[in-house]
């Protein structure tokens, strides 16, 4: 009966993460659809000033870079280059933190240009979506930090793959959310 694997292995964990990702997709899916429903109802769109869009674009670059760093870390681990692995993992964490900082900058810029929180439903949705995403990124950062603090014996390629999967997923969510806000 080789087709049934009864072990709590990394594939099982990957599966659990996939289910969690489905849940998170539904969460953000609801935010996105609510955003569009409100948009149709109010018959307007969020008019973000140019510099906030610029910050958003830079943040997007940063998180994509972070995602790529994670990919490179995995690549180096696979080829047994531990130093490079650690450097790229550190890059992923640092750029992740930078992304959070960038998002906070985006919020403060929004406040400065006169779109504070509770200004209107659509801008509130922008705050809410980026905030909810930010909480997930912070959670992801804790996981990355935990991975980084693990000793070499405890790390495995599967573990890095699982963490990486979640990290790429968060990147993808942000790209989607940012696109939605700009539409």
């Amino acid at each position: 009966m080789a087709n049934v694997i009864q072990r709590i292995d990394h594939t099982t964990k990957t599966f659990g993460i996939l289910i969690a990702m489905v849940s998170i997709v539904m969460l953000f899916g609801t935010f996105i659809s609510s955003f569009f429903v409100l948009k149709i109802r109010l018959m307007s769109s969020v008019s973000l000033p140019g510099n906030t869009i610029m910050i958003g674009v830079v943040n997007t670059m940063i998180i994509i870079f972070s995602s790529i760093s994670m990919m490179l870390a995995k690549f180096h681990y696979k080829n047994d280059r531990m130093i490079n692995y650690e450097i790229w993992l550190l890059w992923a964490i640092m750029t992740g933190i930078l992304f959070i900082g960038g998002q906070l900058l985006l919020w403060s810029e929004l406040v400065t240009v006169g779109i504070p929180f509770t200004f209107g439903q659509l801008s509130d949705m922008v705050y809410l979506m980026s905030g909810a995403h930010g909480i997930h990124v912070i959670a992801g950062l804790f996981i990355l930090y935990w991975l980084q603090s693990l000793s070499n014996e405890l790390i495995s390629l599967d573990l890095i793959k699982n963490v990486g999967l979640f990290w790429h997923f968060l990147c993808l969510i942000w790209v989607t959310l940012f696109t939605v806000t700009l539409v």
Partner: protein
Amino acid sequence: MKIHKDSFWSKHIFSEDHKTIGKQFFWLGLFFLFFGGALAMLLRWQLGYPEQPVPIIGKWMWPDDGGIINPDIFNQMFTMHGTIMIFWAITPLLIGAFGNFLIPLQIGAPDMAFPKLNMISFWTMFLASLVLLSSYMLPLGTASGGWTSYPPLSSPAGGIPGLGQTIWTIALILMGAATMMGAINYITTVVRLRAPGMFYFKMPLSVWGLFLASILNAVFVPVIAAGLVMLLLDQTIGTEFFIAGRLASGDPGDPLLFQHVFWIFGHPEVYILILPVWGITSDLLSVFSRKPAYGYKVTAIAMSTVVALSSLVWGHHMYTTGMSPLLGKSFMFLTLLISIPSSMFFLNWLGTLWRGSIHFDTPMLFSMGVIWVFGLGGLTGLYNATVTADIYLHDTMFVVGHFHYTLAASVMFGSFAAIYFWFPKMFGRALDPFIGKVHFWGSFITINYVFFNMMVTGYAGQHRRIYNPTEYDFLKPLSGLNEWITIFAFFLGIFQFLFLLNILWTISRSKICEKNPWKATTLEWTVNYPIPHGNFDEVPIIYYGPHEYSRPDIKDKDWLGQNELMEVKKWQM
């Protein structure tokens, strides 16, 4: 096999053993079941004897009003009754307790896929319970916007004083987080940890039910979580996602958006609650008819079809909101489609009884009770699915009667059947059969009277959530019937105390019973009580489906365990 060394704390409180967590959910659910039930009794008192002082406890509970329940308290009570019964009684009892207890045991797994997540899930749920109960400490009382909690009423501008509504939202978000963690665990366990040979179509139908319910949980609880976060921001920070009209300070938001989000989750939630019952009933009917479940695969596939359809029908809760005709018609059509798979597995239940050898043990009585009450509850759904009939019946006691038939009567009977059936495995002792039978007949008669007549009052026009039906002339003729419903509801409540006494008495007094008292075939009956952490000494290998009863090719017994290798005798071949 890993040996678990446990201190008191890690064994009984922060246990990662799915059986202990299941029991924790069981006691939590049982507590809230009686709590919500007590609220129901008080609600019935007010509806049967409007604005009369509540006997015995009234003077003590509400001294300022002379023991009379006032409208504020009444609204708080039905809000908490609905919330508690759905999210804190049925969900923990069926999905929390039996989901945890049964899934690993029935599929032959050592534990859940993520034991630590399982433990966190329970304690998140516990925290959510504390948060919810803390709203009883608030000076202005608990939430009172109904379990649906539609904004703008549930936002501060809507006129509900105090923090109750906010606390309610926070508690529900926490509950949702706990449910999602549980769902991730259950799905992964079923998909990845089945014992060798336990194919999907060899799983007991209880596992099918719990598995499908978990899928719905994983997919649709996040939807309401998102809606509740938006509602929470409306309540606390001052956004206006769902606020319109006079109460909105800026551009109007969309109150209907919340209703859509709520029912996109809310309708699957109904199936989340009933799916485990369908599965459990299918299994138990087979056990006590000593006959394989009729059309096992059809039942499993029909249940999956209902799951798929359930995500497309939320609009039938919103026919009267001014929905576009095209949408209304589509929702009606999709809703009615559900009747095909439902009637198929319903017929399979009857097919299981047909030519069986029916033993009338307590779990069987409750399972056959499910056939009755779910039959009525399911069929009466037709009125509410019909757009025209629903224009009249929407938000009346008819709806209340209908969903109590499906959610209270069916689900409670299913839970009782499960508790009577698996009690010997959970606590090692069998519940007293005589008290069990009294409990069944008492509950069966009273529950039918109460919920059927709720539908009758609804048909006669009584709308729901009204404090005093005698305010209206057209409801005056119903006061006698309302009084009767209340009397029967009280008897229904009293019979539940028999059940509680039975549980407490059995746990404290009875002797440990045999390993497999019901002569059932599934894997959980192959292990001795107390089941060790890790469940099975060696990984069971599954050869047969879950319902091998009355096989003509074995002579000495009428059942064959899923992991028993049948002795093939020469002369039989």
